[in-house]
């Protein structure tokens, strides 16, 4: 899986899911409608900059707070293909992976990424290329790569049906 992306850079640590997608809109179910409220509490004009090839590049503890899956759903329907952060809050990260939205914690990429920079990610090779540099992607668990490559947890589960409903899994380092 190879992605050729254009960077949209959002600055600031601890950006929470409330500003990314405020509570009053949590009763919306259609991702096409969700995207109208993405970044509502942060900077709604950011919406205009998202296209079919967007890499959101963000700072530390991105997506802190609520478990609302509306945030990555709205990102996906807005054309975000990948989120690169210095670090992620746990549930937001899980939600991205489960929806097949690549989320990578890579401070080195963040440091090199300005608005509109071109970022290439080769998931099979576990590398990213930006500004003429190749940066290895560390800490990507095989299960997480498989899930993203499959297109999300639903698709992954279809390819890996549990032997029984109570089948606990394998440790994958």
């Amino acid at each position, binding site marked *: 899986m190879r992605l050729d992306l254009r960077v949209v850079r959002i600055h600031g640590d601890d950006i929470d899911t409330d500003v990314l997608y405020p509570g009053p809109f*949590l009763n919306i179910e259609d991702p096409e409608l969700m995207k109208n409220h993405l970044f509502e509490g942060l900077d709604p004009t950011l919406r205009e900059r998202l296209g079919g090839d967007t890499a959101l590049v963000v700072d530390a503890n991105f997506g*802190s707070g609520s478990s609302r*899956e509306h945030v990555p759903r709205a990102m996906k329907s807005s054309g975000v293909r990948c989120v690169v952060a210095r670090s992620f809050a746990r549930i937001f990260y899980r939600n991205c992976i489960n929806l097949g939205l690549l989320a990578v914690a890579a401070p080195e990429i963040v440091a090199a990424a300005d608005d509109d920079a071109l970022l290439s990610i080769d998931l099979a090779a576990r590398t990213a290329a930006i500004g003429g540099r190749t940066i290895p992607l560390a800490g990507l668990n095989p299960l997480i790569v498989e899930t993203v490559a499959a297109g999300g947890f639903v698709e992954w589960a279809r390819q890996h049906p549990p032997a029984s409903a109570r089948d606990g899994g394998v440790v994958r380092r």
Partner: protein
Amino acid sequence: MGHTLTEKIVLAHADVDQVAPGDVVMLRCDVVLTNDISGPMAIATLARMGVERVFDPGRVVVVPDHFVPAKDVRSAELQKRLKDWADGQGVAFYGQGRGGIEHAVLVEDGWVLPGTVVAGGDSHTCTLGALGAFGTGLGSTDIAACLAYGHFWQVVPGTIQVELTGALGAFASGKDVIFEVLDQIGVAGGTGQVLEFVGEGAHRLTIDERLAVANMAVEAGSENGLFPADDTTAAYLAGRARSTWVAGASDPDAAIAKRISIDLDHLGPLVARPWSPGNIAALDDVIGTPVDQVYIGNCSNGTMTDLRQAASILDGRKVHPRTRALVVPATQKVYAEALTEGLIDVFVAAGVMVSTPTCGACFGGSNGILAEGEIAVATTNRNFRGRMGAGSSRIYLANAHVAAAAAVAGELVDPSTVVEVVSG
């Protein structure tokens, strides 16, 4: 090398012989919880997975609580679909007026047991660690996986041990304990970790106080706020637990990522200033801040303990003319108990609005939304920008004593001055 309590819980819920922080395991759930926001989305995902029946109806609990009572047609449709689905699956369903706020309902009704795994479609599922469970918040796709297969992928967390010594003084509460943790480690300091509370000070905390502490573990980025079960836990669960359980604790030689300590004897009331739960200050530093709205309630601090604290300050007094105040009991049972104890009378006489249990304005849903520029003091768990309404509104998070005192004074004050001035 021994194991942490969390590692022991993981070992008992995954088909693995050994674990270390960072491993990814498939973790079996003892209980799966969902609500009117994460639930309908999870149900739709379940359908997309081609799964018609949940893995075990006896292990699934559905509690509509967010946009409850329905604030508009869209919310009503979600709640109707959730109820119809729950009825069709034969899972436990706490209908409106019968349950309350999900985490409080699960604890109160014996679903949460030490050593168990509870997967909840709400970030504050970490509250359930107060009873020694691994309760953790998940999104809708995770919840769909749990409903379908009874398990979810989990990165084995490390453990930060928080040693509590001493005992809480007057006007300090469980809320201040977690504020102090947030002040020490920050809003990302617990990422990939469980906060485990140990020491004589931890044993001295009541279940309500432990719930207040555990509830905001996620505000430090943590997966769970864990109180290993003790005699207090056992007494609380007697006659309530839905199954047998065994207490557990971390081994003395377990690998602990970090240790911090808090002396409860010297823990004064603290507040979290806008716009972060980690923006902690001593109450003294914010005294005199005018207050438009006081909100006492939610999944962290809508317990009988909180309501009693608030009533002790509001008894015989009035809410200040410039301020409006809401009390939101966490569950219908808390509401009924407060009624029996006369607390509701105190609130109504003081000019407080008393609401049915709901997540309501805590997440900006309904039932107490702030206008531009307004300032609230809330016993809730998040004060992010716009969390309770308009983008320029500001929320100070505080314990119930401080919130009630602010309602009386119309500004942030030391609760002891309210009690003294008016009674003296």
